[in-house]
């Protein structure tokens, strides 16, 4: 009864069969997709909270990005290729325009000292530092192929005993776990709450691989004068879907740009993440959020510092702060309530994105379903019904698998007043607007 339609369809099919197809490009696309799949680890990140990881009440928002392509400017490429051993830097920082600019402007300091212990060698390649942060590049090499290269007990101290007000640190390797290799390149990021007062440091850590476990200790001195921070006072209030947000100031450091925002406590929505905040200059060039590493510090629920890639080494004539999309849920949904006795979710934001997979006294495992890509860790803390904070042993989330990922928190089992409340720090719900404010 659908002869006509079927005939039409078969003609369409024939037409497509006769179209030329770019076989080489198809094969290339297949290989690229395959390589990306091979390189992406099964589990994105598992953070263990250590007492000194976050000082005070500041919670750090962390994101792990993956390299999709490497694009470098000719200036960058020629500078890097003029120094032996620097090519690998390209791979490590190609997702951060600010770091690339720092290298291009020769603001990176080569250290290039190595230590070898029982067949395990660590090379401290180079460092970029500014008044409030430091990025260290290093290479670990083993005699035999290893599957894991872990850096544990990472510690940065001043050589003269001056207290470093460490705000956050992270260790990141760009090669995924699980692949057998003899070499690992990595970056260590440190950010401080107070400007650095000292130039000499000791860096200690333990490298743990399948066959080795060795302690390392490096002494190093910052030789380049630290570039002064540029601060721009803003104090401008914007409105997105009825939510009031004040941009207090913008601080431009060589390593990153920090945008200090304050949300009105009377807002009907709780705002988590500013997804697409960026600085745009008069030519339309944009400096977006940090793609890999710390993206924000939350001083408290309503006061965040957002980190963007730095344009420190550029002198734009005009500069605008642009944002369109923010993660936000209704204030009353800011906590996910889980009845751990009956294994039920009592409250969650609209949309039933969360499903309980397993719950016991000591762990809660949920599935988060989304339609769009969502690579955020949704929970920041846990408390019981009496409001007592429960220290988390670990907080993990897995990679996106067809719009679903597993999220879990582990905590010491104990007698807690049911239900438990997981505080949200990210969620797949958004408010949108079209904000563009002049910075200069």
């Amino acid at each position, binding site marked *: 009864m659908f002869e006509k*339609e079927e005939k039409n369809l078969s003609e*369409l099919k024939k037409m497509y069969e006769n179209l030329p*197809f770019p076989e080489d*490009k198809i094969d290339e696309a297949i290989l*690229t997709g395959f390589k990306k799949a091979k390189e992406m680890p099964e589990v994105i990140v598992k953070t263990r909270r250590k007492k000194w990881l976050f000082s005070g009440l500041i919670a750090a928002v962390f994101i792990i990005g993956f390299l999709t392509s490497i694009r470098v400017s000719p200036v960058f490429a020629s500078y890097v290729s003029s120094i032996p051993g620097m090519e690998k830097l390209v791979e490590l920082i190609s997702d951060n325009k600010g770091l690339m600019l720092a290298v291009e402007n020769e603001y990176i300091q080569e250290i290039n000292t190595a230590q070898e212990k029982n067949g395990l060698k660590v090379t401290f390649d180079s460092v970029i530092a500014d008044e409030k942060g430091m990025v260290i590049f290093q290479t670990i090499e083993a005699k035999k192929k290893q599957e894991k290269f872990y850096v544990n007990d990472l510690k940065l101290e001043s050589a003269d005993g001056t207290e470093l007000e460490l705000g956050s640190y992270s260790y990141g390797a760009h090669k995924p776990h699980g692949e057998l290799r003899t070499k690992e390149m990595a970056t260590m990021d440190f950010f401080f709450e107070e400007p650095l007062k000292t130039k000499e440091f000791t860096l200690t850590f333990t490298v743990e691989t399948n066959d080795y476990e060795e302690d390392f200790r490096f002494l190093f001195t910052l030789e380049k004068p630290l570039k002064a921070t540029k601060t721009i006072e803003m104090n401008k209030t914007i409105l997105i879907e009825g939510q009031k947000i004040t941009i207090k100031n913008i601080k431009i450091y060589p390593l990153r740009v920090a945008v200090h925002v304050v949300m009105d406590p009377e807002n009907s929505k709780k705002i988590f993440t500013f997804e697409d905040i960026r600085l745009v200059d008069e030519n339309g060039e944009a400096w977006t959020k940090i793609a890999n590493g710390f993206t924000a510090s939350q001083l408290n629920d309503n006061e965040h510092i957002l980190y963007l890639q730095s344009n420190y080494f550029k002198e734009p004539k005009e500069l605008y702060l642009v944002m369109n999309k923010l993660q936000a849920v209704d204030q009353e949904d800011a906590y996910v309530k889980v009845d751990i006795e009956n294994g039920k979710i009592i409250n969650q934001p609209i949309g039933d994105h969360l499903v309980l997979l397993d719950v016991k006294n000591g762990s809660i495992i949920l599935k988060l379903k989304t339609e769009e890509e969502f690579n955020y860790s949704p929970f920041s803390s846990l408390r019981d019904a009496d409001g007592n904070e429960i220290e988390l042993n670990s907080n993990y989330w897995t990679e996106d698998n067809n719009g679903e990922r597993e999220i879990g928190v582990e905590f010491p089992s104990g007698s807690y007043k049911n239900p438990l409340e997981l505080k949200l720090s990210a969620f797949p719900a958004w408010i949108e607007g079209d904000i563009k404010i002049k910075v200069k």
Partner: protein
Amino acid sequence: MSFEEVVQKAIRGDDQSFLAAIQTVKIDLYKTALAYLRKEEDALEAIQEVTFRAYKGLKGLKEPSYFKTWIIRIMINYCNDTLKKQRRIILNDDLLDAEGEAEDHSLLEIEEAMQRLDERSREIITLKYFHDLKIKDIAKTLDCPEGTVKTWLFKALKSLRENLDEKGGVSHV
């Protein structure tokens, strides 16, 4: 080695077998992507992403003989997501631009009618008439009874006819 055995090896983690299996369906994937997304570069990006998703999701493929239907469905899902995103961008952008862009393509009447189908109807028709897949295979990969697939197919063809008629009506004016 039969194709099923190749897929079976791929599921067990053999990368060469995975690439071999993809080779056998790459033209089907490309044509599906082109039919949905229209542009060669978008189709190539789709192939890259579908290869990625297929590799990551291979363990979820229960029956090796349904590999082709399974991977074409991944492609169709990807294309639908991409179209949704494009639509959203167009809505946020200048509407005039969007109209201008839409007029750039000269579409066959049947293609236009396909584009106006709902996602499921378009998927069923693509699987059945574009890739000559059997109702039984489609039912197995969609995890539903064959009768349901037949009902969907009937509805899909019916809306396709309506879309074609509507188009005819408009052109008479």
